[in-house]
């Protein structure tokens, strides 16, 4: 038996099986995962790694384990999607941990959270003065959503009765030195217009631009390959190898 060859073949099988099963289960971001999804992910990953290196058992047995866990996770997803009550039991639900600026200590006990944990989560949200918080909700994925008191909310043009133009989203016109024709057409512009605009930024050829975008308000963002920045600011606090 050529163990190395067997491990390579098993690794290929486990890798692509895991990839297919993971895509089947969806959930593209870690932040979308509930605690239970996270545990399922770890278990499925561990079965896949065992299928690769533990060649004492047949690969089919591990594959069946992998398949069973994926099917169960899939069923659980469907159940939680269709049945809200089950979703509340399995995945938990958001809980208010600060209400009207007051920390709900009985809720914290129930959630097995310390006040210091809440303060840390608030700091992660950029809140260092706890007087600013009106409501804080602990989401089922463990993140904290915060509503600040009205007096601490940022001033918006609407508050000032100022009319502003909609900026919309930016569309890429040049990416990596290549003009994206479809986007130009979509924005009702042509290459001649683009080249005239780029001349204002000192660009004679599209290949000189790394990225050019245009938003709905007509504002261009241009980044050239040659940034002409002689000294790059180093934000590291420590002299490393690079």
């Amino acid at each position, binding site marked *: 038996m050529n163990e190395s060859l067997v491990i390579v*073949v098993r690794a290929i*099988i486990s890798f692509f099986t895991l990839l297919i099963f993971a895509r089947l289960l969806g959930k593209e971001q870690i932040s979308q995962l509930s605690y239970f999804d996270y545990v399922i992910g770890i278990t499925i990953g561990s079965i896949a790694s065992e299928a690769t290196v533990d060649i004492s058992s047949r690969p089919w047995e591990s*594959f069946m384990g992998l398949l069973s866990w994926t099917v169960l996770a899939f069923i659980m997803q469907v159940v939680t999607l269709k049945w809200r009550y089950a979703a509340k039991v399995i995945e938990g639900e958001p809980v208010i941990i600060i209400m009207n600026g007051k920390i709900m200590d009985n809720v914290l006990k129930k959630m097995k959270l310390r006040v210091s944990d809440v303060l840390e989560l608030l700091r992660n949200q950029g809140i260092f003065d706890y007087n600013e918080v009106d409501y804080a909700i602990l989401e089922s994925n463990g993140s904290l959503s915060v509503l600040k008191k009205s007096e601490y909310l940022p001033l918006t043009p609407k508050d000032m009765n100022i009319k502003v133009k909609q900026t919309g989203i930016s569309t890429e016109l040049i990416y990596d030195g290549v003009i994206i024709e479809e986007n130009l057409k979509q924005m009702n512009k042509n290459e001649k217009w683009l080249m005239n605009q780029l001349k204002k930024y000192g660009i004679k050829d599209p290949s000189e631009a790394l990225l050019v975008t245009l938003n709905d308000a007509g504002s261009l963002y241009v980044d050239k390959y040659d940034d002409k920045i002689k000294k790059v600011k180093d934000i590291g606090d420590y002299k490393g190898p690079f």
Partner: protein
Amino acid sequence: MRKFLVVAIPTVTLILFILIMHSGKILKKPLGNNDNIPQSLDNIIDNVNNESWEAAEDNLVKLNKAWKKVLFRVQFSSGKDEIYKLDTSIARLEGAVEAEDKAAALIEIYEVYNHWEELGK
């Protein structure tokens, strides 16, 4: 077309993997010359029953060669444990034949048979 490929490629891939994992059942059958393990075992049983030890030793050499050929084919669908058990029982059979011990040789042959039948099941 693109949607079809998105479904077809993973499906075909999974079917291929399942076939590899179940290939042992087919690949352990004789596919060419000198890779018929049940035939070699039957010959050894006859030799041992007739106490033709030299012929038994010749057939054991054939059995070892056949096993090496089959092992390469079934290694991807089998566990190391079952392969190791078959390897060990063949080695013990060699010892029993060399010692010209009929009882021990028959015990080992049937053990090899049993491991062989379990392989890739």
